[in-house]
Structure formats: C-alpha cells, structure tokens
C-alpha cells in the first residue's frame, strides 16, 4: 500500500524530494479549520484528510480565493462538494493556496504569497491549484479539491508529481465554487493515486438541484446506457487476458509541438508503451482545431471572468467592505485579475463582441466537434446522439486520448517572471494542452509519468463527455503499470 501511494520517483533525486518542508511550501494558507460542532459522521471516507482550495466554500475556513477582495471572508454555507465529503466522514485539513480567483498558472499571484514546488523551492508549483498539488505531494492531505477552468488542477498535478483529475463539466456540482469562467469551471480532485481520486470522486458525482448546470440523473443514466451499448458491441467471445484489452488510445498529432521538451517526448512514448502492454491499441488521431483552442479559451474565459468579478465592487464581503467604492477594484484586485477583467470587458463590449467573443464561441463548437469525431462513445448532450448507431464507429474512433499535460516540467519562477516581462501573454501558453478539455467539457486526468532533469512530468488522458469512469480506470492501470515498471 505504501508503495502504491508513493509518487512515481523514476529519475527524481531524493534531495529534491526532501526539501523544502511542508511549512515552507506555503501550500496551506490561513487559519486551520474551526473545530467541528459535532463529531464527523462515520463513513467510507473516515480518516481521509482533505484540503480545500481557497475558492471552495466551507463554513469552517475562510474562502479568500487568494484575493484581498475576500480577505477574512467566510462563507455562510458549505459547498456541495465539501458537504458530500464531510457526510462520508472525511476530515478537513485546511485551505490550499491558489492564484487570485484561479487566474494564473503558478500559484504566485496570491494574497497569501507564492506556493513553492515541493521538488525544488525555486520552481513553480503550477497553478492555479498549486497549494492543493503541493499539499498532496507532501502528504499534508490525502485528497485535495481544486478547481480547473483551463488546466488549474492538471498543470500543478503534473509539476508536483501527483494525479489531477478534471471531471466532465457538470459531473460535480459547482455550488460553493467561486466562479471564474462559469461555462468552463469544474471542481477537480488531486491525490497521489488515481485509485484515491476514484474513491473520493464516487462520493461527489451526483445531481444537485442547486446547480442548474450539474448533470441530471437522466443524463447520467443516458451516458451509462450509451457506454453499456458500446461495451456489448466490443465484447469478444472470450474474457480478455489483459485489463485494458478493447481500449483504443488516440495520440493527437497536433500535440506534437516543437516546444515539447525531450523528457516530455520520452515520457509520452513510455506511456504509449505501457498502455500497449496493458492491451490497448494506440493510434494516431487528428484534432484539427486544437491550435485555435488557446485564443478561443482566453476570450471566453476572460469574458466570463469579467462578468463574474463584477460583484467584487468593494461594497460587500470580508474586511474591506465599506472602505468606499472609488478605486475599490484597484485596491482589492491584483494586477493579473485587473488585466483579465479589462480584457474580458473589452471582448464582451457591444462592438468587440462580433470580432472576438462570437468567433471564439464558434471555435469552441468546432473543438467540441473534433472530440466528438474521434471518440467512439457518442456525446450524450447532442440531440440524436443516442440514435447514432454505434456500428458507425470506424477506424480512428478511440476511447481515450493521450498527450502531455504541459510541454515541459516546472519552470524556475525567476525565468517565468522574466519571460512574462517580455510578453504578458507568455504565461497563458502553459495552458495549451489543457484548455481543449475545458472548452469541450470533457474529462481529463494528469498522471505522473517520467521526469525531466529531476523534476516530475505528467501525461494527460482525455475521454468523451461523461466517460469519467472509463477514464479513471485507464489512469489507474497506467499509473500502476508505470510504478511497477519502476520497481523492476
């Protein structure tokens, strides 16, 4: 068990792993949770320690979102996701650090200061759920809940060497998650193993009448039904010997970009080999609109961010309310949030909408259609999807996609800052591999795989909308296979 819980350490130096100490990491921020009024109910998650990203509400922790605007703000209600874990017996450990309102990729722009990468204090922990990833990597908590709008769970998971899972849009209730880009936001999970993520996830994936975008019971049933039909179709006459026989893995050609580090390429090949050994077929697929995904993502996300930030006008919340409205946003919001609010307000404007927001929404639909074309499972959301004959799936239809989570390992914070000094949008490029899943609302998971100059790397798996179970299944097998190979 202990071995299974250990991250994949291949090529990683012990020296890196043992520094810095958890307290130095600045993964947990703010006061510890207030004591519970009553003993937690005993359940399947009794003894499980949970970290909550600072933008997921609980009545026992401040919900600061890493922002001065919500400094010392405590939510009057629990988020649905935390309430579910609590009811299953889990123990709250603390609030994890994040980029202000989730807007960042390095957990650097926070009211609480920077979170350090547990492998190298000088490096980025990734973001925006960097506190969650660092806390999980150093065993501060067994599972952390983060939020993923464009990769904010998967990127820090990859750079901190843990598993990070973004479920399908609407699989988990967003109630109590402070909104960034409402049509992209998903509550995600981080843990050392895919198995732990699956256990916690099963307690969370339920309908919630408080969130109109949370999948209804009917949708969940329809997906299960589609999945079942596909399985019956694939079933051979004999029981397969290998755990992932019948699973088809697609490798998107468009992800083969020149920025990929050599370590990353090696890890990608290694993952392909491991999946083949598990019985998968691995084939090349094409996602034609992937290159347009990043600009489309930033247009949509920033427009929604500007809208969602409108309430932080200085008149409400936390200790800064009533300081006066004039200049409130300049005082209360950090530079990056201000930048995104301004950009978002611009693209939403009466005139810019036609040249920015409208095309971005069209690209978003094209990206979604690309995914629908490569996946064997029909998309349960689209009208007539249930009617599409499963027989139609020909060559090139796959169950999961495999690609790197990021183009390389965690960068040095100093280098990153210098880069951004040259080009403001440079930081946005780190999200290039992760945003397509948010645009399409499909599930994606980052699994530790290989290393680059002593630092962990992550490989990302994606699946069709609603196919979260299958995705976690593949991730769990892949992680175990990589771990056992390492021991050997």
């Amino acid at each position, binding site marked *: 068990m202990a071995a299974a819980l250990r991250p994949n350490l291949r090529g990683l130096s012990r020296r890196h792993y043992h520094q810095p100490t958890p307290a130095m990491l600045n993964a947990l921020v703010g006061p510890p949770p207030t004591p519970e009024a009553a003993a937690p109910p005993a359940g399947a998650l009794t003894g499980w320690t949970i970290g909550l990203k600072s933008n997921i509400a609980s009545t026992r922790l401040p919900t600061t979102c890493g922002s001065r605007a919500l400094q010392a703000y405590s939510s*009057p*209600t629990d988020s649905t996701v935390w309430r579910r874990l609590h009811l299953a017996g889990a123990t709250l450990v603390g609030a994890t650090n994040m980029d202000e309102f989730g807007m960042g990729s390095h957990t650097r722009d926070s009211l609480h200061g920077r979170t350090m990468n547990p492998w190298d204090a000088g490096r980025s922990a990734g973001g925006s759920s960097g506190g969650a990833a660092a806390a999980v990597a150093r065993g501060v908590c067994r599972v952390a809940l983060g939020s993923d709008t464009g990769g904010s769970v998967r990127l820090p998971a990859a750079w901190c060497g843990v598993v990070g899972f973004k479920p399908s849009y609407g699989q988990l209730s967003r109630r109590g998650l402070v909104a960034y880009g409402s049509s992209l936001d998903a509550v995600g999970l981080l843990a050392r193993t895919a198995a732990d993520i699956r256990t916690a996830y099963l307690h969370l994936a339920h309908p919630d009448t408080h*969130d*109109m975008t949370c999948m209804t019971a009917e949708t969940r049933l329809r997906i299960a039904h589609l999945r079942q039909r596909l399985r019956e179709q694939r079933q051979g006459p004999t029981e397969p010997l290998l755990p992932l026989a019948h699973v088809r893995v697609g490798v998107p050609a468009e992800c083969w970009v020149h920025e990929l580090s050599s370590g990353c390429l090696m890890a990608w090949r290694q993952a392909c080999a491991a999946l083949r050994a598990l019985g998968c077929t691995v084939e090349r697929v094409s996602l034609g609109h992937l290159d347009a995904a990043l600009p489309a993502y930033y247009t949509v996300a920033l427009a929604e961010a500007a*809208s969602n930030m409108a309430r932080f006008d200085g008149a409400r919340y936390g200790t800064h309310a009533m300081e006066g409205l004039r200049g409130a946003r300049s005082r209360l919001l950090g530079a990056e949030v201000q930048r995104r609010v301004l950009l978002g307000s611009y693209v939403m404007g009466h005139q810019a909408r036609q040249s920015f927001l409208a095309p971005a929404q069209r690209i978003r639909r094209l990206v979604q259609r690309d995914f629908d074309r490569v996946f064997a499972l029909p998309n349960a959301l689209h009208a007539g999807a249930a009617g599409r004959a499963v027989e139609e799936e020909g060559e090139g239809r796959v169950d999961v996609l495999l690609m790197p989570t990021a183009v390389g390992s965690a960068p040095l914070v100093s280098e990153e800052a210098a880069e951004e000094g040259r080009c403001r949008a440079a930081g946005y490029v780190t999200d290039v591999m992760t945003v397509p899943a948010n645009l399409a609302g499909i599930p994606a998971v980052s699994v530790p795989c290989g290393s680059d100059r002593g630092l962990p790397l992550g490989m990302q798996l994606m699946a069709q909308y609603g196919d979260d179970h299958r995705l976690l299944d593949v991730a769990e097998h892949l992680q175990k296979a990589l771990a056992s190979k390492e021991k050997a």
Partner: protein
Amino acid sequence: MVDASIPGSLPRLNPQCVDIAARAILGLNGQVQHMSSFDRKHYFYYDQPLGYQITQHFYPIGRGGFIELGPDEGFDYTKRVRIHQVQLEQDTAKSVHGVSPGHVLIDLNRAGVALIEVVSDPDIDTAEEATQFVRKMQMLLRHIGVSNCNMEDGSIRCDVNVSVYHRDSDRLSGTRCELKNLNSLKVIRNAIDAEATRQKGLLAAGGVVDQETRGFNAQKGVTYLSRSKESAPDYRYMPDPDIPEVRISDSWIKRVQSMLPELPEATRLRLGKQYGLSREDIETMINEPGCVSFFERSVSGRDPKRVAAWITSEVFGQLSYRAQRLANSLLTVEQFCGMFDALSSGLITSAQAKQLLIEFMDGEKRSASEMIKVHGWKVISDDAQIRDIVSKILDSHPKEVAGYLKGQKRRLNFLVGKAMAATKGQARPQDVSRIVKELLEVSISV
C-alpha cells in the same frame, strides 16, 4: 444567497415563473417560444449586487401578440397595439429612503425575484391610448392570475418611450426619450403629455430632441433629465452560463392554454349574450378578480340580473366599506345563494338579507337558513295579522290619519313606518303599505 450574491451561489430558474410567463404571453395573444435563454446585462448600481441583471436579451420566452383598444376603452375607433416581446428577468433590490437619515438602505429581499417585462411595438399614438393600454393589460393579467398588477406597490411598473413627429413625415421619424418609473395611470397620462409638449416646444424653437432617459416630477408636471445618451452604458450582454436554455414543447404550451381562464373580451360578450346583463354590471364584475366566477356559480336557476345587481351593489358596497377584495372575502357562494333564495321566496325581507350579508362577510360560517333560524326571523305574510297591527297603529295616531284624510299624502309614509316598526321588520314593506292604504280607504268610505 444569490440575492445577496454570496460568492459560489448559483441562480435557479423557478419553473413557476415560466408557467406564469407563458400564461401572460398566451393571454396577450402571443407565441411562447420553443427555445429561450437567459443573458447577463452588466451595469453597476447599488441595487444590483451581482453587477449584472439576468434577463432575456437574445432569445425571449415570448414574441408577438397584441392588445385591442376600442369602444370598451372609450375610443370611437378600434386599433391593435402589438406586443414586441415578453421576457423574464430578475428584479433589483429595493432602495429604502428615509429610514436612516443620510443613507439609502438596500432591501435585498426583492433582488433576484423574477419579473415579466412586456415590450410593445411603437403603435401607441396618444397619452390616452397608452393609459388605456396599461389599464387593459392590468385587467387582463389580473384576470388570468399572472399578477395583482397593483401599481402602488410596484407589482406592475411602466417605462414609456415618447417621440413626436411632424405631420408631413413618418410617424417614427422623431427621436425618442424614455420616461422611467411611472407609477400610476394618471402619472403615465400626465408624464406623456408633459414630455410631448416639451418635445414640440423644442422643435418649434428650432431645437433638436436628444435621445435620453427622463423622470417625471408629478408636482410640477414636467419631465427632467436623468441620463443623457452619451452616458448610456454598454450592457455587454452575454449568455448566462449558469442557466441552461429553456426548451418548451407544443404539448406543454397546449396544456397551459387549456388551463387559461376565458379572456375578458370573450367573457364580456358571453355575459351580455347569455345573461342579458347591462354593460355597467359586466364591466364592474370583470374588473374584480374572481367575480365573474362567483356570479356564474351563483346564477344557475336564479334571475341573472337580480343576482348581478346584488353582487355589484350590496356585495361590492360591503367590500369597499371593508377595503377588501372579493377574492379575500369570507362570503361563500353557498351562503350568498341561500340568502338570495330566502329573499326571493319571501322568507326574509331585504333588510334582513343585507344583515345576513354583513354577518357572512364578518366571518359567520353558518348557512343562510341556519342564521334565519338563529335570528327567529319569519315574515308575517298573513294579511289578517298585519291588519290587526295596522289598525292598532291607526287607532293610536288619530291626528295623522285625519291629516292623511285631509289630503296630506306624506302622512302615509309615517304610518307605514310605525306599522313596520310594530312588526319588528318581519313583514314585507309592500304588504304593510298596501294594508295601511286599504284601511285608510275604509276610513274614508266610513
């Protein structure tokens, strides 16, 4: 939570609002849309804690429809004012002035409550048409149970766009100004007239009308500038990602349609044809929610005109005395019918019937027949018995009798009154009057 825009809270569409909006749309002869969606309208104001209002900008739930104005509204012509669209949106918080001096308090209880906005086409030509349009819509929406439409408490609010045009040019050639927050029919009429006068004056003096938002000062009878076009905000409309599209099926629309009460136009025609009621009675009953139904449940087997007369005079008299609506009254149809039948068959007098009505409306739960027993009322219908009482009265008032016989006819009313009092109201006045006359005639012949 959403009302106070607690971070992490999410809006939820109340299905009842969709139902009510659909009723309003169908009542206004419009089309409920199969697909509608919600958008965020961004602007900063202290009564808007979210920083945006959730409304329906791109795909409203209702399109089309009309309200007809004609003789019933006092016009000597008939015209249709078309409805452009009907949309669902969130109300803002309520600003409370004067409770805490120097501060405006914000009551968030109203924030986020759904309201229905009806946008008409520019078909209205006069202030009177505008007023009657609003009045008729009020009546209609009350009738189909969409809203109580009380302007005083803000259940219905009204913004009016006013433009004037030169008689030689197109009717829509003028620049419009929006008058906001007109809160009574009288204010609507006066504000429009004041604004039209202002615009005409401007044009006559060679000036131009600027597109702007204006308020109305009812005391001075003038409109004033509240926001010019230059400061008109860009609302940066964006589809609300928190609320999925609303899909409505034909069968659902049909079901709502079938549950809609008869529309006032049709009711008016039918009440006239079926029961022969007067126009006044019909108007009075139609304007009181629940009244037509009360009438129709009471009328079977009874004289419709008398039933209507009792409802519109006696019942309404009591309602206005109590400042009550019929819908909240404790009077039941059964009690009313019992009272009416007892009166018609001569079991009680009309004075007693009125007393019963008062008791019922005070909350008396017992039936008319029980109450008649409790009071021990019975009408003295035996002429011999009345004759006894009357002759005693005549005997004890020789002066008045003599006066009558000399031709002082008004003495008759005095004698009838005395005799009525002697019967303790248990005889029908017409019987007493007849017998008094009879006996007096006898005296003459003697």
